[in-house]
């Protein structure tokens, strides 16, 4: 186990604009750390900089306690799994697995023992003699994984390792990778564009956008308290609904998208009233109106689209200039064009500064605890 520390790391090509800038993060020993962001956000570049495959043009990279900026990739004591697996086509599965050990001149029988051990762990035993082209996509992925594990390096980097697999296999491999990482205690840095992978696998995740850190934190923390509108819409499916809003302190209400008026609970809103606002609300926080619904916090909307998914129903409607979605559990008979009353609670809103995207008001904590009564529902 080793920690990885990035201090003010940046990357530019030909001294032009930085493609990555001001990266400050410490990845703790044994942590499963996920780098997530849309394609082109710089996450792969960052991983490759940690691996030593790209030069670091600014800042310091520390692996363990050692400055690693100019270490060659093989001196960094790490392993890497590539998106296309990078298996050597002319070598057998066993030779592929032991490739790195062979480079380090490990004894042959020792190599063989280790290969068999790791093949056992990943269910590859009967394929050890085959060439990569004789394997299925999932098996190749396992070989790539085996190659990383067998090196017994304290740090493992993975660059979208599951994106070439079909959905079912992907879900299975998610938990398998997580299981192996936990049992071996490796420090894992995992790159993906898939927010589901990030949410389900990461101890902590870092969201990158245009080469800048948007937010670092535990998945649930990020889901509940996105630092800015980008994170809010990137994490969660369907994404958080956003709309421009204004605070009307005189009437003690929030005007959302020039359309909905939400009464404000008691409190001090002087911070909010000075700025232009963007409000966000998760689709699951737009509820059907019930008997207890407080007067004034319900609205009538016109349904523009409906998807019934068996255990939940998602429908969309227009708020100001933006299209919003609501997610109700269960199956609802809703038709396009229906006028529907929905309710929204001020407490569940996230409010951002429209200019710099900063989070001004967090939503309340909504987690449930099995042993206790439901909190804040």
């Amino acid at each position, binding site marked *: 186990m080793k920690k990885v520390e990035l201090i003010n790391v940046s990357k530019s090509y030909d001294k032009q604009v930085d493609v990555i800038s001001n990266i400050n993060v410490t990845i703790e020993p044994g942590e499963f750390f996920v780098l997530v962001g849309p394609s082109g956000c710089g996450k792969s570049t960052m991983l*490759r900089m940690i691996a030593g495959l790209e030069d670091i043009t600014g800042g310091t990279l520390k692996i363990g306690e050692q400055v690693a900026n100019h270490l060659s990739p093989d001196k960094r004591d790490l392993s890497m799994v*590539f998106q296309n697996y990078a298996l*050597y086509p002319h070598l057998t599965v066993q030779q592929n697995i032991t490739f790195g050990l062979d480079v380090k001149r490990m004894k042959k029988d020792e190599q063989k023992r280790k290969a068999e051990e790791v093949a056992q762990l990943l269910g590859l035993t009967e394929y050890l003699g085959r060439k990569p082209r004789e394997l299925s996509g999932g098996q190749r992925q396992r070989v790539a994984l085996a190659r990383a594990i067998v090196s017994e390096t304290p740090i493992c980097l993975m660059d979208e390792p599951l994106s070439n697999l079909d959905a079912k296999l992907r879900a299975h491999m998610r938990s398998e990778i997580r299981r192996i990482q936990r049992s071996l205690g490796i420090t894992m840095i995992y790159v993906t564009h898939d927010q589901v992978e990030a949410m389900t696998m990461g101890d902590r995740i870092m969201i990158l956008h245009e080469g800048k850190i948007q937010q670092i934190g535990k998945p649930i923390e990020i889901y509940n308290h996105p630092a800015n509108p980008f994170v809010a819409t990137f994490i969660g499916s369907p994404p958080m609904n956003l709309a421009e809003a204004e605070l009307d302190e005189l009437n003690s209400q929030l005007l959302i998208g020039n359309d909905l008026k939400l009464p404000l609970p008691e409190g001090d809103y002087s911070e909010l009233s000075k700025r232009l606002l963007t409000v966000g609300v998760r689709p699951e926080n737009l509820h059907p109106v019930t008997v207890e619904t407080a007067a004034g916090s319900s609205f009538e909307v016109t349904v523009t689209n409906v998807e019934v998914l068996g255990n939940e129903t998602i429908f969309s409607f227009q708020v100001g200039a933006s299209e919003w979605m609501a997610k109700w559990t269960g199956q609802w008979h809703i038709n396009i064009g229906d006028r529907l009353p929905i309710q929204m609670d001020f407490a569940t809103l996230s409010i951002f500064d429209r200019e710099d995207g900063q989070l001004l008001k967090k939503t309340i904590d909504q987690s449930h605890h099995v042993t206790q009564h439901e909190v804040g529902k």
Partner: protein
Amino acid sequence: MKTSLPAKIWMYFLLIVTSLLVFFPVLYAFMISFMTGPEIIQGRFIPRSLSLENYVKVFERLPLLGYLLNSFIVSISVMLGQLVVCSLAAYAFVFFKFKGRDFIFFLFISTMMIPWEATMIPNVFTMRKLDWFNTYQGLTLPFFALAFGTFLLRQHFLTIPKELHEASQIAGLSRFKFFWKVVLPISKTSLVTLGAYGFLTTWNMYLWPLLITTNQSVRTVQIGLKQLQSQEIATEWGVVMAGVIVVIIPTLLLLFIGQKQLQKGLSQGALK
């Protein structure tokens, strides 16, 4: 695809007639190589007996065995030399990023526009200065670098995923070991194509050996054929043809075995 029967018969007819026409000169030479002088003058096509007399004679008249050996040494040296030099250059073009790469690449392309025959005069002088007349290095070394061969291998190297390179960097493989242990084994088919091509063209080379071999020490079979033909003119064609058959057998065999591979490899190298 299904072809109708009349079309098939028509196709086979064309195939048989034209391929026989193409192959006829070789077949004819083969037949003549077994004939005696009178048989040839009679104008027979099929020899009376498969007597190897002409073959025995041709090895007596000429140091043909020595020439064959020279041709083998020269062809195999050029083949290996080209494989080494071209694969090294192709590797640099594909797996290194460096300033001036485009310029050097352009230099390689430009060598394809300079015909060998336009440079042969100074090359002969160079050989004289180096005292490389009648030496193997004089026959082989000038042909080790080959732009076509470099491009052919480069095409193949370009298909190797860059992640393979990165994975071996992480495993701690040196640049040269990656070339040796990964790139070359993966590119076996292209190497075989280039090797066969190099062997074939060197075995058949005529002008250069003519210019720089002045005695029998390293003379190749092609020049031997010229010698044979000018000695034996009009008298013993059977012996001459026996020489021809001996000379073309290695390359024909190579071609028959590697025809499929050559055709695939060369057309890939030809078109980028």
